[in-house]
């Protein structure tokens, strides 16, 4: 194990950082933590005379462990690119990497990469289980990308006189639609949401008639396995059904 990085870090950053050997790398144990308290380790290696500092994929591995989704969301991926830009780090095969240029000290690069790691780990706050409204934002992003005009959370008056909030009122030259998003991580909440959607569609059904009839679309966030066939069948009686995992089919309903 080379003593260079350890001595350099001890001199420039102090004794809060510890070094050890890890499979050909120098493991640098930082005093910083991931949001759950796990310690942030970085790894140093010299290759062809150049120093490379990396997290060896640990940040994305940590993020993967915290979330219910299989991949980073589009928003998380965009923020990750922004973080790389801000801190001047690269992402390669899932690793965050910073090269130690001659003009920089290892301590400076270590500080920069650590900041990037901590910022990337904070993307956890954008995970679905942290912010339930994110799916709704993703739907809005999709509609914007496809140039489909829409209004969010629009109040509509039902035949009973009761007001309902429609998640999205979309407008397209071919068709206007009301979209209710059904998104939850809890099976118990799933039934409640479905019942509410059924009640809304039923009370607003007078809007299906007329010369410019609306289309009702129940959009299921099927990233969680909480929707039973019975619930889906129930909504099919009152609306068109679409799934967030199949955005093309959802869009087709809005524009055809």
């Amino acid at each position, binding site marked *: 194990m080379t003593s260079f990085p350890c001595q350099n870090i001890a001199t420039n950053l102090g004794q809060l950082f510890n070094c050890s050997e890890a499979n050909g*790398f120098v493991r640098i144990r930082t005093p910083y933590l991931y949001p*759950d*308290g796990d*310690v942030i380790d970085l790894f140093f290696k010299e290759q062809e005379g150049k120093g490379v500092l990396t997290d060896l994929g640990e940040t994305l*591995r940590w993020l993967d462990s915290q979330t*219910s989704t299989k991949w980073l969301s589009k928003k998380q991926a965009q923020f990750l690119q922004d973080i790389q830009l801000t801190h001047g780090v690269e992402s390669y095969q*899932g690793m965050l990497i910073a090269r130690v240029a001659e003009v920089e000290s290892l301590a400076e690069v270590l500080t920069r990469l650590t900041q990037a790691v901590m910022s990337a780990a904070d993307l956890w706050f954008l995970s679905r289980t942290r912010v339930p409204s994110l799916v709704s934002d993703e739907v809005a992003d999709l509609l914007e990308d496809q140039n489909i005009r829409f209004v969010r959370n629009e109040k509509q008056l039902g035949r009973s006189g009761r007001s309902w909030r429609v998640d999205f009122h979309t407008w397209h030259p071919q068709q206007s639609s009301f979209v209710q998003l059904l998104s939850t*991580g*809890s099976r118990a909440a799933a039934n409640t949401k479905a019942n509410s959607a059924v009640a809304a569609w039923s009370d607003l059904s007078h809007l299906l008639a007329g010369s410019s009839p609306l289309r009702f679309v129940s959009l299921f966030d099927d990233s969680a*396995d909480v929707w039973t066939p019975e619930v889906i069948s129930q909504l099919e009686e009152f609306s068109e059904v679409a799934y967030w995992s199949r955005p093309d089919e959802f869009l087709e309903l809005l524009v055809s």
Partner: protein
Amino acid sequence: MLSQEEFEEIIADTSKRIDSDITWEADESHALWVKFRVEIVSDNGYPLFIKGNYNQVIQALTFVLVHVGFGRIYGLDLGKDHRNPDGIMIGEKHKHRWSEALRDKQAYVPEDITAPANQPVEVWQQFCLEAAIEHNGTMRPPPAWQPNLFL
């Protein structure tokens, strides 16, 4: 918020099971570590699944029990140190366990895990025991890591 009572009920529920084999997946987007995800079935229908990932370069292994509505509620880390909210360092073998006050930030040393990180199949078997999960299938060993030009 998941109550303590609900969490303890989930952990103690012995009907939790995995009815499939487990295969580790490698991918270019995370070349140094492999992962898997499997659903957990239970008589009470808890929306749970297990995620596992393993960084073979540094021998860091993680198994987490995820509740779809609340995120990680229980998990094992090998090869990574942890600091509890009270400042106590737990060490490179620790389990996170949900609490209402601290969510998943509180960890302890699990005496039941004796296999090392480079034996993920053995670690998995020990993990399932305390978590009361019956695995009706086989976990295949992770694919051997191939060093690339970068490393």
